[in-house]
Structures are given as structure tokens and as C-alpha cells.
């Protein structure tokens, strides 16, 4: 269901380019980004919440020998790390893909003038150190 809506959203966006400074554009990028972050965070939080609960309520399962460890020791000692990495990779891919998509949605005439877009930062402009 969510997938379908997301495709629909993309289709609508591709029809009408948005003003960079519009509420519509800001709302859309924030919503899409936070949705991505929360969906990955919830998988991760679920694991973190469930492991102690399993330890608490089914200790006989978690204390089963597993590869010479107990299962619960194996989970925290090894098993969880590949999951962290996989979630992080998934997030970075999705997030970058969305950024590319978002760039295409902006009406180019509303972008800041290209000549001004040097990459000075706030600190450099505030302290003429160089």
C-alpha cells in the first residue's frame, strides 16, 4: 500500500516541478527522509528491544549452546554487527537515491544564482583567517 502511494507521489512530482523555497518541496523532502530513517530505525530498535525480552522470558532458548557459545552470547558477540552494517548500507543507498530524485524535482529557475555558490562556510566568512 505504502509502496503504491510512493510511486504515485513520484509520478505527481515528475509532472510538476517544485519551487525550491516552497512549503510543498520542504514538506516533501522532510517527510520522505524521516520516513526512511524511521523505517530503518524501527527494524533496528525492534532487535535491540526484543533481545533482552527473549533473555528474560525464554532463557532456556537463549541459553542453548550455539557454536560453543550460548545463543544469546553469540547474538551480542557476533550476530548483531552484520545486521548493523546491512541496515547502514540500506539507508545510505536509499537516502542517496532520494537525494538524486529530489534534485530532479526542483524547478531550476528557483535555484540560487550559480555564480554565488562558492563553498564558503559560516566559519570562514565570520573569521577572515586566511
Amino acid at each position: 500500500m505504502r509502496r503504491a502511494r510512493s510511486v504515485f507521489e513520484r509520478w505527481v512530482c515528475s509532472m510538476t516541478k517544485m519551487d525550491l523555497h516552497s512549503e510543498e518541496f520542504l514538506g516533501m523532502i522532510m517527510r520522505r527522509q524521516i520516513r526512511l530513517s524511521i523505517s530503518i530505525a524501527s527494524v533496528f530498535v525492534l532487535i535491540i528491544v526484543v533481545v533482552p525480552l527473549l533473555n528474560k522470558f525464554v532463557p532456556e532458548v537463549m541459553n542453548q549452546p550455539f557454536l560453543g557459545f550460548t545463543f544469546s552470547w553469540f547474538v551480542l558477540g557476533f550476530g548483531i554487527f552484520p545486521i548493523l552494517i546491512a541496515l547502514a548500507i540500506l539507508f545510505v543507498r536509499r537516502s542517496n537515491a532520494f537525494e538524486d530524485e529530489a534534485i530532479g524535482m526542483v524547478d531550476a529557475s528557483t535555484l540560487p544564482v550559480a555564480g554565488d555558490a562558492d563553498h564558503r562556510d559560516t566559519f570562514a566568512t565570520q573569521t577572515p583567517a586566511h
Partner: protein
Amino acid sequence: MTGVSIIPLMFVVGIVLATIGLGIYATRLSRTTSDFYVAGRGVNAFWNSSAISGEYLSAASFMGIAGMIMKSGYDVLWYAVGYAAGYVFLLLFIAGPLRRFGAYTIPDFAEGRFDSKNMRKLAVGFALTISFFYMMPQMKGAGITLAQLLGSPYWVGVVVVGTVITMNVILGGMKGVTFVQAMQYWVKMFAIAVPMFILMMVFGPYNSQVATGGSPETKPYTLTERATYKYPQAGELKFTSSGTIKPETTVAAKHITYNTEGFVATKKKVELAGGESVSYPKGDKIVFATPVKVELEAGMTVPNFTKSESWLHPFGPFTSKYVTNAEDKQWVPLLYTYSLVVALLCGTAGLPHILVRFYTNPDGREAKKTTLLVIGLLSLFYIFPAMWGAMGRNLIPSLYANGGTDLVTILLPTQLANPVFGQILSGVTSAGAFAAFMTTFSGLLVSVSGGFAHDIYGRMLRPNASPESRLTAFKVAALFGGALAMGLGLLVQNFDINMLVGWAFAIGASTYFPLLLMGAWWRKLTSAGAVAGMVGGGVGAIGSVVFTMLVDKGLATPLSNGYVNTLLAQPAIWTVPLALTLMVVVSLATGDTIPSDIRLKMLKLHAPETLGLKADYIKD
């Protein structure tokens, strides 16, 4: 225990000289003020992620987790997981927006996001608090390691290492540090992995060590001969079998008797006669009021030893520390576990010396890539500390006797039959440990001194200061910051390194994390709301932690309720929601103070940088 360990000492001197040498070399490369602070912004993701990991892997990771796994077992695995997993939260919610915003430090973000000078002051205040909390355990690691290698008193290690690093920061700044930090990740990775593989080939693999350490059939670990142990002030001796001790001098001790369930029943001060043997029944605990050397009889089970069952399985002695009755035992350990996990997950995003590193990424996309690499590098590292803890339990249980388990990574290699080879491997781990204190301590010191020079001196005291005088302010701040950290380090000899770091995380989680999370994602957050949340969360967390430390030092009386004591020792589970709630409630009440250009700020936080908003923002 006595005399100088020549070979490890040579390794340590080598790594220290290499660090100083690189610092001096790098000074020539750092000419401008911004170079001095963040090394420009052009560091590539691989080097930057190595540097972040190098800076992040502190004494807690290198020595503390192993020591606490040895001491308390399973529950401590959460530290290894949490220290790595905190970066996932950082990646999901904070890394990208923070980098895009283009502010230079967290206080810059606080001021830029809310257009409020007071937010800056508050943010600086918390940065300093968190940094000093984090510096204390680094000092402890340095103190005990050098004491071990030189046979010197604890304070010598603290002062020597503190002075060396402070001088290095004053001479080299962060440019040197970035370069050095990256290399030192690999030094630490090598030092924790390679000796462990060799030890496993000799003494058996990780899984068999865990199985042996957790097996009830493993014979109780007995002292084979009379041994002398040094106990520092407030050092604990808990008899796991009946035994006899012989204090070297007359000493006052707080004598605590355990009831049959193993919980504190009475507490009183006793005088231990010097030179005369004193017998104690099983279960008794003595807390020494002054430092003392005692002789333990051969044949008694190692004091302070953890029972196999509770070591191997969840909800053991670490999370059950504040259990006072059978009813508490039901939920208190679970509560402790969750609260610890909240602190670690949210706290990583609240560490000032780590966050500042995200500005060395050229853009948000690089920031995300860097974070991803950091998660990989840390995951690799955090598999190892538990191996040291498990093997240490089986090979050098005598470390339990006087709370020396934090030294397990330094001492374990000396158990090899070939003493020279053992000393060499111990040299490798000692060098790794020194790399850990040096990188973390210098990162924190740069963060503290930079915060002072940039935010307090440069923004509040003398806004028109020249770059040269700011650099002088930085160096003076580093000098005083280093001295203060050494002073604080002297006070924490009896605390587990890992506990102290965990507390720094809890404070970060209750202050910076809510600020960054809500500041980046909720546009209705007002400066009043942010202040209320940070102060509420910060005061709650700092108050709880300081109270717990005072109780441990015997300067305050613990409360009788196991739940309350647990919530004070691990406060994140209530202080983080408290901070978030205060932010929401106060922001809604002060809705008229939302900055007028909030939409532009939000756009800058979230729109891809290629859209050129950064320059747009600066023109304002």
C-alpha cells in the same frame, strides 16, 4: 606486580614518541586557524572514518570492555554493541542534516538554528561537562597501565600521560590529530586482534573460553600461593570462600556484611590490625578506607570472583547491582539493561569530539559514507574485547582479587610460556592502550580548548579577537583543560573505566542528542524549548551520575529502593524522554518565538547540497 616491564615500556615509549613526532611534523602543515581546528574539510571518507574510529576507540573500548566482561560477563556485551550501534542513530537522524547545515561546532549549530546566543553558551557548557566526564576514564586507563609497567604509583601515570598529550595538542592541534588518529585506529585494531589470535592458538578459541568461564563444573579458582595485593582507597575485597588477610599496616576499613542472598545487610567501620591475620567468613566484604597492601592466604578462592552461572547468562551481577530483594530481581536487571542501551545508542550522537569530526566531510553525502564506514570499522573492532575478557577469566583470575580486571588486555599475553614473546605481545597491547588514551584524550582536549577559544573567547569575551590571539587562547585553554583532566583523573582510580564512559554517554544522550534530533527534524522547536529540554535532561543525568559516584565513594547514602538506585546509576531511560518531552511542551507554549526564517533553515538542513543552498544561507 613489581619492577619495570622493559619490553612493553619500550613499545609504549615508541608509540608516544611516534605520536609526538607526527604532531610536530603536522604543525608545519597547519598554518591557518581553521586548519588548526578541523583540518580543512577535504579529508576523504576512508581517512576520515579511520580518524573518527581512531578517536572514538578509547580506553573504555580497548581496556574497559574486556575488563568488565571478565568481571561481570554477558551483560557487558551490550557496551560493545551499543558503542557501535550508536553510529546507526547518528547516521539515520543526524549526520546528514548536521553536515548540510554548515555550522562549525555544535554550539554553532545551536546558535544558527535558534538565532540565540544563549543557546551557544548552554551548548558550550554541556560540551565541556561531557568532555571532562569522558577524560576521567582515559586518565584512569593511563594511570593503571603505566603503574603496571613502571611499578609506579597511579598518579605518575596520570601526570606523565596527561602532560605528554597536552603538550602534543598545544603543538600540533587537530591537523596533526586527524592524521595521527586515522593511523591509530589501525594501531588499535592490530593490537587487539593479532595478539588475540596468537593467544587463541595457544590457549584455545573464543567459544571454548566462554564455555569454560561459564561452566559450573570449572573448578573454583583458588590462589595457589600466598599473594600480596595492593588495594586503593575504597578498594573492595569480597570473600568468595572463607579466608584470612593480613594487612601490612593498621588500617581503617568499612566492613560490609552480606546476607544469605548476597545483598548488603550491615555496614560499619572496622580497624584491621596491621601485621596480624584477620579471618573472614564467606560472603563478607571489606571496603578499605585508606590504601593498603594485604596478604591473602593460599587455598582461598580468589576474592571478588563472579560465579560461573551469573557470568555466562544475562542479568548477572552487573545489571543486578542494585537488586535488594527477590521482588526487584524480577525487573530491575531488565530496566538496567534497557537504560544502558538507551544511553549508548543516543549518547554517541552527543559526544562533542565525535560530532566535530563530521564537519571534516566535504558534504552530507560524504558524511553518510563516512558514518557507514565507521560502523564497519567499529563492528570489526568490537568483536574482540569480549575475547580478552573471557580468556582473562580463565587464565589470570587473580586480577579479580583487587579489582584489576581493567588490566586484562595488558597482562594476558604475559601468560604465554615464552616470557620474551609474552612481553612483546604485552608491548603490542600496551601500545594499543596508549594509542587509545592518547587519541581520545587529545580529541577531547582539542574539543574543549576549541570550544573555549572559538565559543567562549572568540564569541563571548572578545568577539573582535584576531586569529592569532584566538590561537593563543586555544593553547592556554588546552593547558588548563589538560591540568583539570589530570586532577579529575586522580579521583577515579576505583571506578570501572567503562562505567565512567557510559556516564559520559548518558549525559550526552540527555542533552545533545535531543537538541540535534529535534533541532533537525521538528521546525516548531523554539530556543526556550531546547533550553528547557537540555537543562532538564542534563541536570537529571548529571545529578544522578554524580550521586551514584558519591555513593560509590561512600560520601552519600544509597536509597533503599532497587528501582530508584538503578534509575540513578543508569539515568538515560528517563532523562532522554524527559528532555524530549520538555522540548515539545515548552516549544508549544512559546510558539511565537520560532525563528522567522525557519523554512530556510529547515531547507538547508534537508535539501541536497547540490541545490546550492549553502551559499544562499550565507548571503543573509
